[in-house]
Structure formats: C-alpha cells, structure tokens
C-alpha cells in the first residue's frame, strides 16, 4: 500500500468514526451549515449499510451505487427539513429505499414476469389432493444452520418478480410496517398484504425442491 493510499484510508476512518463520537445534534448542526466533513462522515458511516440495502432491491451494482448517491444528495438537499424526530439512520434508510423503489419503477424492461406459475395449484374441485404438500427436512432454525441455506434463499428471493420482491424486502427484511410499505410503493395496505402473501407463497414454491423431505420408499 502506498503512502497516499494509506493516508486516505486513515482520513476515511477518521471521517467515519467522527459520526460515532460527536453527538448527532452536533453533526446535524454541521450538516445544516454545509460542512463537507460532516457530510463525508455521514456518507462513510451510513454508506455501507445503505449500499447493502440498495443491492438487495436493485440486484445491480451500478444501479445500487447510483441509488445510494441519489439518496445522500437528496438527504443533503433536505437536511433542513429533517426534524430529528427519528434517528438520522432511519431517515437515510427511508430516503435510499425510496430512491431504489423509484429506480425499480422507472426501469424500462420487458413486462414483469407473472407470479402465477409460482403459486399453488389445485384440482378443479379446489383441493390439492392430486399434489399434496410434502413436509420439509427441518425447521427454519435447522435449515439456517446449514452453510448454504441463506445463499439459496437469497437466490430464490432474487427470482421473484420485482413488484412482489420489493414488498417482501420492505416488510420482511427492512421491517417496515404495512402502512409505510403501502405509502412508499403507492398501493393500498390491503394490496401490500396480498402481495406479501403471494411473495411468500412463491418463495415457498421456489425453495421446496431444495428442502422437501425425500419420500420414504
């Protein structure tokens, strides 16, 4: 590592740790006065977590970085309106999630894949006798003890259609309330509940081949 790089890393650590040592009120004051060091400390302190959030939503590194950048710039522009009623980390999280959702909406891609193929199928009489649901090999806790499980689940979540994946992430991963998720996505609370239910059903379908108990012969 050369001296220049070493110095810049030390400066980065200093800027990052500054947020943790100064009081949030003091940092907010510095941000409102437009002090770049305070802004940099905020970026370094909260950037890693926000980038992880954006990667989950957007599944594309460049898009995720753009969303985080948009989020921080949006926060910079509106820091004067931040009331301090919530922690700044919560406020930034909402801003970046919103930036991600706007990007998802604006993606001009082929029409979203239907989720119908991933929902349960029934016989004509409405029962599932012909395709009874198998048991799985263990509880969630037992399956999570396996090294490969989380990766499998993340891959399955990535396969969900965007509008369902976004609601699953908002409710089950980011732990937003139904009301907050509805406001951010721009749909009713009832629609959030239905989308979340279908997303979980689809996730169950995608995971079943990995975890179903082998039939006894």
């Amino acid at each position, binding site marked *: 590592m050369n001296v220049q790089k070493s110095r810049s890393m030390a400066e980065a650590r200093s800027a990052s740790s500054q947020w943790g040592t100064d009081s949030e009120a003091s940092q907010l004051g510095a941000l409102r006065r437009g002090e770049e060091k305070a*802004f940099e400390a905020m970026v370094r302190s909260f950037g890693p977590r926000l980038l992880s959030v954006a990667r989950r939503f957007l599944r594309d590194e460049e898009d995720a970085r753009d969303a985080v950048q948009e989020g921080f710039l949006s926060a910079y522009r509106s820091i004067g309106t931040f009331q301090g009623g919530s922690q700044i980390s919560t406020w930034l999280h909402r801003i970046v999630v919103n930036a991600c959702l706007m990007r998802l909406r604006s993606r001009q891609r082929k029409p979203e894949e239907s989720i119908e193929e991933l929902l349960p199928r029934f016989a004509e009489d409405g029962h*599932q006798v012909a395709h009874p649901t198998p048991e799985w090999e263990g509880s*969630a806790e037992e399956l999570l003890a396996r090294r490969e499980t989380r990766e499998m*689940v993340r891959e399955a979540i990535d396969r969900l259609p965007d509008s369902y994946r976004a609601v699953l992430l908002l409710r089950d991963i980011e732990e937003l309330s139904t009301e907050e998720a509805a406001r951010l996505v721009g749909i009713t609370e009832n629609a959030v509940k239905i989308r979340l239910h279908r997303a979980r059903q689809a*996730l169950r379908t995608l995971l079943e081949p990995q975890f179903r108990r082998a039939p006894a012969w």
Partner: protein
Amino acid sequence: MSTRPYITCRELIEFLHLYLDQELPPDRRAEFDRHLAVCDSCVHYIETYKTASALGRNAWTDPEAPVGEDVPEELVTAILAARRSRA
C-alpha cells in the same frame, strides 16, 4: 358437529395470511380450523409457508458475514463531487 361443506384447500391457502394474522372473524376462523383438522396437505402447506417466510426474514442475517465493510472509495468520491457541484 357442522354439516356445512368444508372450505376448499384453495380458499384456505388464498386467505391464509388473514388466518395467520388473526384477521378472520371467529366463524370464518372456525371453518379454517375444521378444514385443517382433516387435511394434512394444508397443515404441511402452512408449516412450510411459515418456514419459507422465516428463511426469507433471515436471508441476510448471516452471523458469519463480515461486519464493518467500508463503502467503496470511488462511490464516496463520486458522492462528495456531486454534492460540491450542487452546493
């Protein structure tokens, strides 16, 4: 004992989220319970639905994941430059 026909698996699974969230009226909830008393397949469906949901909630909570990761330096530089250009 009720002589009403059982609700179908389709009805139960379609409205399962309301059953699990305790949002069904008591008479409707009783219909779900009556179905579950005779349908192993739906019992297994509910168990695996709950398991899949729990796995989803824990997909990014890896205890072995590295903590304290830095944000990429080029991203910090880009954000700071964008802020300066808009200040």
